[in-house]
């Protein structure tokens, strides 16, 4: 796998941590999925079933789901920057620290390319960090997509890939969960007038 692919998927995840606009973050995750999808298609040359599944995954993750989230964003306009959001530099510091710590602590999982393995583990950690440090509801769905892209990247580097049945099942689950997250995001905005998830803190004992 080329270094360009690794850099693009890594930097796009960091971009999601930093950017303010939800539409830009959606575009970054769409780009990340597109690059990974193209890589999967290039690796699948000659194997028709694998090629078909790689195409379905690309369409779902790089086109359909970003389009769905973009539709949610267009229906739920935010008046300005959310007060509960921390400074971009603070977010980046926390997310990078989490990702680097996880990469350093995670034992070797047996992939041939160490750089791919580290990037994949880093993406999983960054996806979870995105859900923690970003307040708009849409970003938590994007965090899930970044985690899934991390696992997808690792699967592309695995000696025999992930079984196609599992790839298809994952895409199906992803579509369902992101659709439900989109519906929630719209409802939260309708109820609170904003998609700020820090307002969801009434249930305590």
């Amino acid at each position: 796998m080329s270094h360009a692919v690794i850099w693009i998927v890594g930097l796009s995840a960091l971009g999601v941590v930093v950017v303010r606009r939800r539409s830009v973050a959606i575009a970054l995750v769409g780009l990340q999925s597109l690059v990974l999808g193209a890589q999967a298609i290039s690796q699948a040359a000659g194997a028709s079933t694998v090629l078909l599944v790689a195409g379905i995954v690309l369409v779902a993750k790089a086109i359909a789901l970003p389009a769905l989230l973009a539709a949610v964003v267009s229906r739920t306009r935010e008046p300005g920057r959310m007060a509960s959001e921390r400074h971009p530099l603070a977010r980046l510091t926390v997310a990078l620290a989490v990702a680097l710590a996880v990469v350093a602590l995670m034992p070797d999982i047996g992939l041939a390319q160490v750089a791919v393995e580290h990037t994949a583990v880093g993406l999983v950690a960054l996806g979870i960090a995105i859900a923690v440090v970003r307040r708009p509801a849409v970003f938590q769905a994007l965090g899930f997509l970044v985690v899934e892209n991390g696992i997808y990247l690792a699967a592309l580097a695995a000696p025999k890939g992930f079984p196609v049945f599992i790839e298809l099942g994952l895409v199906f689950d992803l579509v369902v969960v992101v659709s439900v997250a989109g519906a929630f995001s719209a409802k939260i905005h309708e109820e609170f007038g904003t998609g700020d998830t820090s307002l969801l803190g009434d249930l305590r004992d």
Partner: protein
Amino acid sequence: MTEGLVIAVPALPVACGLLIQFARTPRGADRIHLLGALVTATAASLLAIVAFTHSADPIRGTWYVLDGASGAFLAVVAVIGVLSALVSPGYLTGTQHSLFASSRARTWYYLGFHLFWAALLAVPLVDNLAVAWLLVEATTGASALLVAYSGRRSALEAGWKYLVLTTFGLTVALTGIFVLYVGLAPHGGVLGTLDWQSIARHRSSLSRHAALLAFLLIIGGLATKIGWAPVHNWLPDAHSESPPPISAMLSGALLPTVILVAWRVLVTLGPALHPGVGDAILMGFGLASLSIAVPFLWRPLPWKRLLAYSSLEHMGVLALGIGFANPLATAGVVLHLAGHALAKALGFYAAIPLLQHQAEAGEHPPRGIARLSTGTATAIGVSLGALSGLPPSPLFFSELLILAGGIAGGHLVVAVLAAALLALGFLGLAHALIEGLLGGEQHHRWQRGRSVRAVERLAWAMGFGLLALSACAYLLPGSPAVRMLMGGLT
């Protein structure tokens, strides 16, 4: 014939949920829903009987397995599913507000309910870790909007928390499955690599650290969905904010179903770790869950929130029983699983008349229900009495079996700690039971309406069911099903 039934069991509720979308009236939707639920439960019960009769020699298809464990868990999911289906029309009729547009709210509820039930019925049947993961993840997608069904702000918060926390937890488990797959790939590199038997057969080829990493990630990820402490944050909120029939499904069917996946992982992958490590991790989750839950059982919580913390306590008991890995404890786990599901479901069904007659019961603990409604009080009494472990509750016998199994397995300190926590939990729930039935000043009796009558009938039926389970406490230890569970859920 068997394979047809295996396919039909999850397919029937899916078909029913879709068919309901064509219903023209609420009554028509109710009829299709109830008919579909009865047919599904009958098919699932037949399949559970087939699984029990073959527990000594499990039936394996290309993608499914029918063993004693599938039979036990399938039976529990079928019973809780059909009971929740039966009380759902009554709940919906008495509900004014919903997350969905009023014209479609009922049919959306039924669609979500049947998809959720279908995924739950399929989990015990599948013979593959990755497919089981996909189905567990599908339960989140199907049930998250049901959790927020009432449309209240608090319900939105609970549904969102449930969706986000369990989804991210399950991605951690997926990472562990991937680590396991890579470790086992030299023996397959296909879907069958993650079949339960394949994992058990090839686990010795995994390095100790790869096996431990995979195990920790998978069990840690599944723990978020089971609601084991300390990754249980969604559980009290989702259980207390969901519609009562869905709360019953979450507590009585979803949590145990995911426990079965964790149990199969322990049995198949655990021996590749240092001896006792896998069991110790389960015991750690068990003690942590009991320690977190018990203080809340002493607090004056609203009825459904109290039941939610009781779920945390009982999932901890199940983790301990599985971790003890002893025939007595295993018999206790099977009994506890069924007894908890019945008692907890009844408790949530009692919340239907309770919330209909006392809107403030969503915020405050119930008081003096015995003076207000004999039927509701009967349900609350049977449920809380059984959940506290008051004899002759099956949970009294199952907890005894689990503790005895722990002592027999050489885990004396853990068993003594667990016994102390269970005793404290019993006192907390006993206090809540007395206050709930007899406390406070209440004078205006409720009308004995449809929901009260339904809950009263369920209380009697489920009370007898609980007594029947208590009788099973004498039959289970040493039975073929328990021997098979000890021999391996593979």
